[in-house]
């Protein structure tokens, strides 16, 4: 009885995945297509929210440049637990077509390991939807987010904040 009751909460969590649309690269266009009438991810309950404070998972849409990395980490830091990471596009894995660029971070999975990664440049909406359904399964199983246990994002964020103390003072930027 108790397990069934607890299972209900797992069910609720898995069927209401809200995301913060972190549009940092070109793959966000395919996320836009996914919101559109043809693919319509709202059928499964996915919903983009404006503020990271209400989000369940963050979508890294491809490219993470050196300049945007601290912002990404802060956004992730602001999200309430349990929080997950969903990454799409080759850039979010190893830099993709910009593998030799100096201003693109090529080891995003080491810093913020995604729970689900969808390959492609850019991946098709069908592939992204498949990945999102995988994400639902992970949430359902109450798996701990990979970013929480193996990522090095905390140290890097700390370094960034030390470099820029003004940023740390901005209340909107600092999570709990």
């Amino acid at each position, binding site marked *: 009885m108790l397990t069934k009751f607890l299972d209900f909460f797992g069910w609720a969590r898995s069927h209401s995945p809200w995301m913060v649309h972190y549009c940092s690269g070109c793959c966000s266009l395919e996320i836009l297509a996914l919101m559109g009438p043809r693919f319509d991810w709202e059928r499964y309950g996915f919903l983009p929210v404006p503020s990271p404070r209400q989000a369940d998972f963050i979508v890294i849409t491809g490219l993470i*440049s*050196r*300049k945007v*990395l601290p912002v990404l980490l802060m956004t992730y830091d602001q999200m309430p637990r349990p929080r997950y990471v969903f990454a799409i596009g080759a850039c979010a894995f190893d*830099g993709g077509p910009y*593998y*030799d*660029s*100096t*201003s*693109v*971070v*090529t*080891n995003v999975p*080491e*810093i913020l390991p995604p729970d689900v990664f969808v390959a492609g440049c850019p991946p098709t909406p069908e592939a992204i939807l498949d990945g999102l359904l995988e994400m639902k399964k992970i949430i359902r199983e109450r798996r701990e987010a990979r970013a929480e246990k193996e990522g090095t994002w905390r140290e*890097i964020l700390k370094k960034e904040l030390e*470099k820029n103390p003004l940023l740390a003072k901005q209340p909107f930027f600092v999570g709990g």
Partner: protein
Amino acid sequence: MGFERLKKLMKTYFGVEAQEYPQNAVTKTYLFQIQPVHIREVAKLLKENGFNFFHTLSPVDYSPKGRGLELNYFFESIEEKIWVVIRTELPLDNPEIDSIHDIYPAAEACEREEWEKFGINFKGHPRLKPLLLDDTLQGKWVQRKAYVPEPHRD
């Protein structure tokens, strides 16, 4: 009309001839090779003679070929449909040139970008501060040939 006058004035003031620049796929273009110290006077002359549209500033690093930095300014006369390329060369160590941001405000952002990427010091520019690149790449002059990009890892 404006261009003919410009050609004459350029000849009398700076002693430079208008060369054909056939490389522009777009339209008829002329090239003036000038000294870097004259850039402000030339810009003023261009503006007076109807070249009111600033297109872009394109520096090229010729250091592996034994030359310095080459700066190409692209201007267009909207009425006459004529383009003018102003070309000048700077030494690679400590390149300096006057800013033309007050004559062509469009050049402000372009100069700022090229300062960041090539290390060209535009004298008199109001805000030569980081624009596109992050702190780790500042001062490395990423667009120069001497800089070899390496994949960034954090």
